[in-house]
């Protein structure tokens, strides 16, 4: 068209005008560390696997999850999910039910028979792992995936360690435990059961191992010095729980007193309840001070377990115990009152903590032990080169998730050490704080409640107490994730830019800024729901 001069213009010709030169600060895409991921002792990329679950792609979600943790079905039952405590959604309504989705994925994998990814190449190195508990099996999995030969020595007759001998069935059904353990074994991990390592150096030498990871659980119950009559039946909690795995279940009598306030005390009391006893927990402080997780205490109380607060046991006899009442002082510590009472008890179970049998470490040069645990560096290696340790053996909180995390961390360091290198963890992103989010955009969606077994059956059977989510509720729960700090491709930046300066790269490829036109208004940052964009001052 022979257009009139100046008055009539060709379409879209303003592309010649690069308005980016106006900018004083520029938006940049970032990945922030979601608080759940930051919190996870097992180092799971929770936001990452939820992203896949949100679209209903459960296998991808499971594969993403198992890159870090091979035991989602176990995790989904026994993990104390501190991630949920950190979840930003908790500041809107309730945290995302991460744990329940994890369990759904774990169960779905078992149901569908999904297999873990086998290594593609063999390194030729051989690593010894002592203990087939969460930490040991986690390390076995990661080392195997890295192509190393792995042999696990387990003192006990079955896989699982403390997961089997410390956690009751009603919380972790044994078929689930067994299935997830076996799936690791199927990767080509060699396991020797009933094979206690007496001396680590000897075993390493005998087996020509290139490195070792020690992951012995805290199987020894602590004993308190309670004056006791000869006839008093006193047993430690861990022995009791272990014996539950065998044919011969212990005879505790009707009136079982459990002494302690930790999770193990609760487990024992609930186990006793299921065996037909009338358990009573005796604890020296108050409920608020109880170290056991609140939900476990709550469930125990629901099941009719009695607790005697602010009480210590002074004397144990055949069928009774002498209790001294305590009172909290101004600092909140329990102090004896001199007031005593006697209660009836057929047995006393001591749930006062556990120790690790460190016998295998005797004579290992360089290795340091203090407070009953092995000292390790940040690379999980003990003072003796090539010997690494994790789980209950090292100074840390003792739970399954921490153990699994140690296994993963140790595997990475062992892998590097075997190549005479040092594993340098990638720099962690800044945390995605609640303030980084624009929560307007998330739909109102209260947390899905997991079904619970009815109370009568909880009191009388070892059936699993907490049910799982079905597909629709799991999907719903996954979609409650705010995807803190990580782009989930909501297209907001692409849509709200008044200058069309955001380029959409297509599904899964996220976005790019076109700095030729971006004027730096910051709207994309303000309207990004998940805080995955930040402004940076422009350098002139």
């Amino acid at each position, binding site marked *: 068209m022979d257009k009139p001069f*100046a*008055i009539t*213009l*060709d*379409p*879209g*010709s*303003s*592309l*010649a*005008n*690069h*308005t980016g030169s*106006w900018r004083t600060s520029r938006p940049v895409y970032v990945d922030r560390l979601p608080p759940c991921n930051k919190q996870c002792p097992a180092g799971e990329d929770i936001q990452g696997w939820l992203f896949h679950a*949100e*679209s209903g792609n459960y296998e991808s979600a499971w594969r993403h999850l198992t890159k870090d943790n091979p035991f989602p079905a176990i995790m989904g039952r026994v993990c104390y999910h501190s991630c949920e405590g950190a979840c930003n959604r908790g500041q809107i309504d309730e945290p995302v039910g991460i744990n329940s989705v994890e369990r759904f994925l774990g169960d779905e994998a078992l149901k569908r028979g999904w297999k873990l990814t086998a290594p593609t190449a063999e390194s030729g190195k051989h690593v010894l792992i002592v203990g087939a508990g969460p930490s040991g099996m986690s390390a076995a999995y990661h080392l195997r995936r890295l192509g190393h030969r792995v042999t696990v020595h387990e003192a006990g007759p079955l896989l699982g360690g403390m997961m089997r001998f410390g956690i009751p069935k009603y919380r972790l059904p044994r078929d689930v435990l067994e299935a997830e353990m076996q799936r690791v074994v199927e990767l080509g991990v060699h396991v020797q059961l009933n094979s206690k390592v007496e001396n680590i150096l000897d075993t390493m030498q005998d087996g020509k191992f290139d490195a070792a990871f020690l992951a012995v659980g805290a199987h020894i119950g602590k004993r308190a010095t309670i004056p006791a009559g000869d006839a008093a039946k006193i047993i430690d909690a861990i022995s009791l729980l272990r014996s539950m795995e065998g044919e011969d279940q212990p005879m505790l009598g009707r009136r079982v007193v459990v002494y302690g306030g930790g999770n193990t005390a609760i487990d024992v009391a609930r186990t006793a309840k299921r065996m037909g006893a009338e358990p009573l927990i005796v604890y020296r402080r108050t409920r608020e001070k109880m170290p056991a997780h609140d939900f476990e205490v709550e469930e125990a109380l629901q099941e009719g377990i009695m607790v005697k607060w602010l009480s210590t046991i002074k004397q144990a006899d055949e069928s009774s115990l002498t209790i001294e009442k305590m009172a909290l002082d101004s600092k909140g510590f329990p102090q004896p009152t001199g007031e005593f009472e006697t209660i009836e008890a057929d047995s006393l179970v001591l749930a006062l903590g556990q120790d690790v049998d460190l016998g295998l470490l005797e004579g290992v040069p360089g290795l340091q032990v203090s407070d009953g645990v092995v000292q390790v560096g940040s690379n999980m290696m003990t003072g003796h080169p090539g010997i690494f340790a994790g789980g209950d053996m090292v100074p840390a909180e003792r739970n399954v998730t921490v153990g699994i995390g140690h296994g993963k961390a140790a595997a990475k360091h062992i892998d590097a050490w075997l190549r005479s290198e040092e594993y340098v963890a990638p720099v962690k992103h800044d945390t995605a704080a609640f303030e980084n989010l624009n929560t*307007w*955009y*998330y*739909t*109102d*969606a209260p947390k899905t409640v997991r079904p619970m077994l009815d109370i009568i059956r909880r009191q009388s059977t070892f059936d699993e107490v907490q049910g799982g989510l079905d597909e629709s509720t799991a999907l*719903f729960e996954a*979609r*409650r*994730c705010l*995807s803190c700090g990580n782009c*989930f*491709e*909501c*297209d*907001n930046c*692409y*849509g*709200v*830019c*008044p*200058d*069309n*300066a955001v380029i*959409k790269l*297509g*599904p899964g490829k996220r976005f790019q800024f*076109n700095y*030729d*036109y971006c*004027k*730096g*208004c*910051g*709207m994309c*940052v*303000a*309207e990004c*729901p998940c805080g995955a964009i930040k402004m940076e001052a422009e350098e002139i």
Partner: protein
Amino acid sequence: MSFQPLHFYQTGTFTVGNRLLAEEDRTVQAEIGRTNSLNSGHRACQGCGEALGARFAIDAAMNAARGRLIAANATGCLEVFSTPYPETSWQIPWIHSLFGNTAAVATGIAAAIKVKKQKGEMGDVRVVAQGGDGGTTDIGFGCLSGMFERNDDVLYICYDNGGYMNTGVQRSSATPPAARTATTMPVGPEPGNAFGQGKFLPAIAMAHEIPYVATATVAGLHDLEYKVTKAMGMRGARYIHILVPCPLGWGAASQDTIKLARLAKETGIFPVFEAERGEVTGVLKIRRQQPVEEYLKLQKRYAHLFGKTPAVETIARLQAAADKNIRKYGLLDQEAN
């Protein structure tokens, strides 16, 4: 049936796109191949609500018209920042004639199309007219009312930022009470724009009993696109009034444009509804009601209300106006029940 937000899918229909939604539930703006009717390189201020609103609306109209759209544009910011010689940002056939005649120009375009169509010289091309609040509620009002009453086949879109921003932020009949503009300075016994003046054009449009009248904001893209699409599916005179915050004129941070539009809706200051042939047929409910202060305090044009001695009475009057909207249009769920 008015626009119904979709829940469940993480962000539902609150975000521009959503990979979890069905294709048909996503916005035009989320498409890689959207028209970008208003292309990059335009000279709007940083964070311009009008540039955004215009692209939202015209892209949606283009989508509905399957690319066969002509736009007439009133004088004003939108025109000036989009078409300074030698460059235009428009990618669609577009004409700017004058400040006050856009509705009539659009009528002419529609008439020409009708004849050309009859003669088989043109397909079913649709017409959109657009202007700011000054060009719509003031100087262009005569032509607009004429276009309405003749029921000409034009969709008129007003981008309301409450003043003459292009000429340096003077008062228009859409400037809200108490707001500071260059011609309603915060001085004297009644600082800012006077109460009891101004007009709400959507209501006047409704009085013409035209097929469709709707309001929208740049903070509700799904709703906005739904309304443009619905309007494009109708014939005759249609009017959509879009609230487009102006960082310059409102004295707001450039990144707060959408936030302000959202607050205008959530406070009840700007009712979001639609009407057919003069009757309200749907409202977009307030989701998280906010007091008007939340909206006002982000804008320097209201700074005089929040001085050493806050203008409590004035704020209360503004709150009362918002409450009136809430009652009148049933913006809260309980109001509707």
